[in-house]
C-alpha cells in the first residue's frame, strides 16, 4: 500500500514536470526559440564545469538564507513579504560597519558586519511584527509599504552618505569594501564564497530552533492554530514578534553576504529580487529548513540559466522568469493535488479495480 502511495506521488510529480515543460515550450515557441536547445542549455550548462556549479551555488546562498527566515515567520503564521526591504537594511548596515572596521582583522570585521546586518534587518522586521501583534495591522500591508521605504532609503544612502568619494560619473554606489570585510572565494576564478558556510550553519540552527526547542514548538503552534496556542498558554503576540525579528535578521544577513561576497560594493539593484524569490524558495521547500536547501539549488539553476540563455541563444533572458513563473504555478497546483486525499482515494480505487479486472 505504501508502495502504491509513493508511486502515486512520483507519477503526479512526473506529470507536473511534463505539463510544466509543455507550457514552457509554448512560451519558447511563441518567442521564436528552439525548444530543445533552450531546455538543454537550462539543464546542462550549470553542470558543465566546476566554475558553473559555483555560479549556481553562489546564487543559492542569499536565496537560502532568506528562505530560512521565511520558514520561521511563515511557520509562526505571519507572511513576511518584506524580506526585500530587510535585505536592503542589512546591506546599508553591513556596508557602514565595513568601512568603520577598515584595518581590523578579518576575524573581527566580518562577524561584526554580519551581526550589524542581522540587527538592522531584525529591527526592520520588528516593525511589522509589532504592528501585527499589538494593533492587528495586516503584515502584507506593512511589509510591502516598508519595502518601498527601504528601497528609497537605500538609494539615498548610496547617493549621499555612502557614495564613493572617487566616483566622478555620479553613478550611485559606495566605494569598494575594505579588504578586511570581503568574503573570500574558495577557488580563485570561481564565484563561490565563504557565505555558503553561513547559509549551511543557519539551516542547521533554524532546523534545531523550529523542531527541537520549546521556542520553536510554540512558534509552530501559534502559526498552526493561534486559538489553540492561546488556549495552551502561549503568548502568541510575543512569538509573532520574535519570529518576524528572526525572519528580518536572516534577510539582513543575506544582504550582507551578497554585498561582502559577490558585489564588493553597495550599488543599486543589489538585492536582485532575492527578497521575493526567497519566499518562493521557502514555499517550494515546504517551509522546512532542510528542504529549503535543494529548493534553493533548483532556483539557483534557473537564475543562472538567465545568463547562459543571453549568451548562447536568441531567446530573451526574461523568458526564464516567465518559465520560472509557469513552473512554480504548476508545481504548486500539483502539490495541492498530491495533498488532496479525495483525489488520491478515487485514483486508488480506479487503479485497484482495473487490476482486479485484468486478473479476472
Amino acid at each position: 500500500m505504501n508502495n502504491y502511495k509513493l508511486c502515486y506521488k512520483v507519477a503526479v510529480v512526473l506529470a507536473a514536470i511534463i505539463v510544466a515543460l509543455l507550457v514552457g515550450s509554448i512560451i519558447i515557441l511563441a518567442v521564436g526559440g528552439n525548444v530543445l536547445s533552450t531546455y538543454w542549455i537550462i539543464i546542462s550548462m550549470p553542470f558543465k564545469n566546476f566554475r558553473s556549479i559555483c555560479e549556481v551555488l553562489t546564487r543559492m546562498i542569499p536565496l537560502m538564507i532568506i528562505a530560512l527566515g521565511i520558514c520561521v515567520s511563515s511557520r509562526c503564521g505571519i507572511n513576511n513579504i518584506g524580506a526585500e526591504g530587510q535585505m536592503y537594511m542589512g546591506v546599508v548596515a553591513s556596508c557602514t560597519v565595513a568601512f568603520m572596521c577598515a584595518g581590523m582583522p578579518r576575524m573581527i570585521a566580518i562577524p561584526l558586519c554580519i551581526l550589524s546586518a542581522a540587527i538592522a534587518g531584525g529591527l526592520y522586521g520588528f516593525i511589522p511584527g509589532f504592528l501585527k501583534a499589538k494593533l492587528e495591522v495586516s503584515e502584507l500591508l506593512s511589509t510591502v509599504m516598508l519595502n518601498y521605504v527601504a528601497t528609497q532609503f537605500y538609494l539615498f544612502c548610496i547617493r549621499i552618505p555612502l557614495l564613493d568619494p572617487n566616483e566622478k560619473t555620479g553613478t550611485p554606489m559606495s566605494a569598494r569594501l575594505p579588504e578586511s570585510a570581503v568574503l573570500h572565494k574558495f577557488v580563485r576564478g570561481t564565484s563561490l564564497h565563504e557565505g555558503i558556510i553561513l547559509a549551511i550553519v543557519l539551516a542547521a540552527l533554524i532546523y534545531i530552533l523550529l523542531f527541537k526547542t520549546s521556542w520553536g514548538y510554540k512558534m509552530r503552534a501559534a502559526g498552526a492554530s493561534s486559538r489553540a496556542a492561546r488556549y495552551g498558554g502561549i503568548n502568541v503576540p510575543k512569538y509573532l514578534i520574535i519570529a518576524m525579528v528572526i525572519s528580518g535578521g536572516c534577510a539582513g544577513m543575506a544582504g550582507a553576504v551578497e554585498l561582502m561576497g559577490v558585489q564588493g560594493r553597495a550599488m543599486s539593484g543589489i538585492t536582485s529580487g532575492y527578497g521575493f524569490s526567497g519566499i518562493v524558495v521557502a514555499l517550494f521547500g515546504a517551509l522546512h529548513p532542510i528542504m529549503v536547501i535543494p529548493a534553493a539549488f533548483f532556483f539557483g539553476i534557473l537564475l543562472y540559466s538567465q545568463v547562459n540563455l543571453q549568451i548562447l541563444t536568441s531567446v530573451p533572458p526574461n523568458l526564464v522568469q516567465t518559465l520560472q513563473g509557469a513552473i512554480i504555478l504548476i508545481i504548486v497546483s500539483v502539490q495541492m493535488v498530491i495533498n488532496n486525499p479525495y483525489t488520491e482515494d478515487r485514483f486508488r480505487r480506479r487503479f485497484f479495480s482495473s487490476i482486479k479486472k485484468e486478473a479476472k
Partner: protein
Amino acid sequence: MGKFTEIKELRLENIVKRFPGVLATDHVSLTVGEHEILALVGENGAGKTTLMNVIMGLYHQDEGSMFINGEEVNFRSPNDAFDCGIGMVHQQYMLVPNMTVLENIALGMKDCQKNIKVDLEAVRAKVNEISTKYGLKVDPDAYIWQLAVGEQQRVELVKTLCLGAKFLILDEPTSALTPQETDELIALLSRMANELSIIFISHKLNEVKALSQKVCILRHGAVVFQGNTKDYTPKEIAALMTGRDVETSANTEEPCNGKTAISIKDLCVKSDRGFLALDNFNLEIREGEIVGLAGVSGNGQRELAEAMNGLRKVESGSIKFYDTEIANLTPRQIIDLGMGYIPEERNIEGIVPSMSIKENIILKDTETEKFSKNHILKNSEIEKYTDEMREKFDIRSPHMHIAAGSLSGGNIQKVILAREIDRNPKFLVCVYPIRGLDMGAAEFIHKQLLALRKRGVGILLISEELEEIMNLSDRIAVICKGQNQKVLLRDEASTAKLGILMAGVKDE
C-alpha cells in the same frame, strides 16, 4: 414550478458513497412515501448526513441510484434537487445574519431576481402565503441576528417551503432548541405532514417516537433496521442503534461539602459582538463537586468558560479560584494555578490540528522540567510519556506522530482529556464534552470526569444535553441571557423544570 407536481415516492437503491478510507454509506436502500415521516437515526458518523447530502445533490454517490415516482433522477447540485421539490434544512442554519428574513429568503428565489432590483414584494407575498398555510409565524422584516435559534429555524423552514419543497429533509432540527421549542416543532411538523413528506434525522429517541411513522437505523453506513416506529420502544431502538445495550454512568454520590474552589461574583463579560453576554453572573463551585450548567447554547456559556481561563476580558465582577483572583490574568497564569479546560471547539482550540498527537499532549507543558531543559525539548521523555497516555486514555491511533486533526472526534477529545487530566488540575472547566461523540467515547469521558470528581477536583460541566447534566451533576445551574437563573440539587431537577428555566422563566 418544478419538475414533479407531487412526490408520491422517493426511493434510494444501493447508495454507496466513499470518503478516503471510509465507507460513508454502504448500499443503503430506503423508500419514503407521500405524507410519510421517516426518522433516520444512528450514532454520529453513521452516515446519516452523508446520505442526505447525496439526496440533495451536494455529494454524488459512487454507486446506486435514486428514483422519484419511479423515475430515475440524477442531481448534480442542490438546485436540481430544489427543482424536483426536495428541500433540506441543515443542522447549521444557512442564513446571512445581517440581512433581513425577507432578503434571506429572496436569496434562493431566482424568479424574483430577474430584474436588477430584487422583487421583494413578490417574496413577501409568497412568505405570507406559506406562513398562513402552515402556521409558521415569521417577521419578514426582522434581521436574522435579532432572532432566537427557534425563530431562525422557522425562517429556514419558510425559506425551504418558498422554494416549492414538497419533500423536506431536516438534519437534527432539535439540537439547538429548548424542550418547549422542541415540542412546538414536533407539533408543527406533524401538522405539515398532511401536505408534505419528511425525512428527519435525529438521535433523540423520544422525538423519533413522537413524530415518525417509520424508522430507519444506520450503523457504520449500512441500514441495520427498518420498521414502523410504533412497534418499538425507545430502548429497543437505542440498542439497535449502538449494537449493544447501553449503560450510562451516573453520579450517585451524596452532595459534597468541600472547600469553595471557584466563586464567581457579579461577573460581566462582553461577547464578540459587543453586548453583555454575561450580566452579573454568580456561581459557586466546591472542590469535589460537579456543577452542571444547563442552557440553550449562545446564552453566555462560551463567554463564561473563556473568562474563567483568561481568554476573554472581564468587564467587571470577580472570579476567585481558591484564594486567587483570576479575572483578567493571562491564560498562562491561570494554567499555572491549576485550571484545566476542555474547550467547546475541540478541533481548532483544544488541539493544534496539524501538529502530531505527541506535540499536542505537551501543549501546555513545554517549559516544564519534565519535557525540556534549557528550552531544548526532551524528545525521548515526551515519546515515553505520550505512549503512556495512549494506553491510559485508550487513544486509538497506530502511533503518536500522526496529525491530531486527522483523528476522529472521540479520539481528539481523549487527547485533550489526557493532557488536561494528567496535569492534575485543581479545577476543570468542561464545555460540551461529548458533543458529536458516539456513545462509547461519551461513556469513557463521563467515567473519567466522575473519577476526577472522586479525587476532589471541582468540575464545571457546561452542556446542552440535559440527560448528561442530570446524570453527572451534584448541582445544576441554569443559564439564560447571561444570568444564573437558579441552582437546583440533582434530586430536585427534572427536564420540565430545567426547560422552563432555560427558556428564561424565573419560577417563584
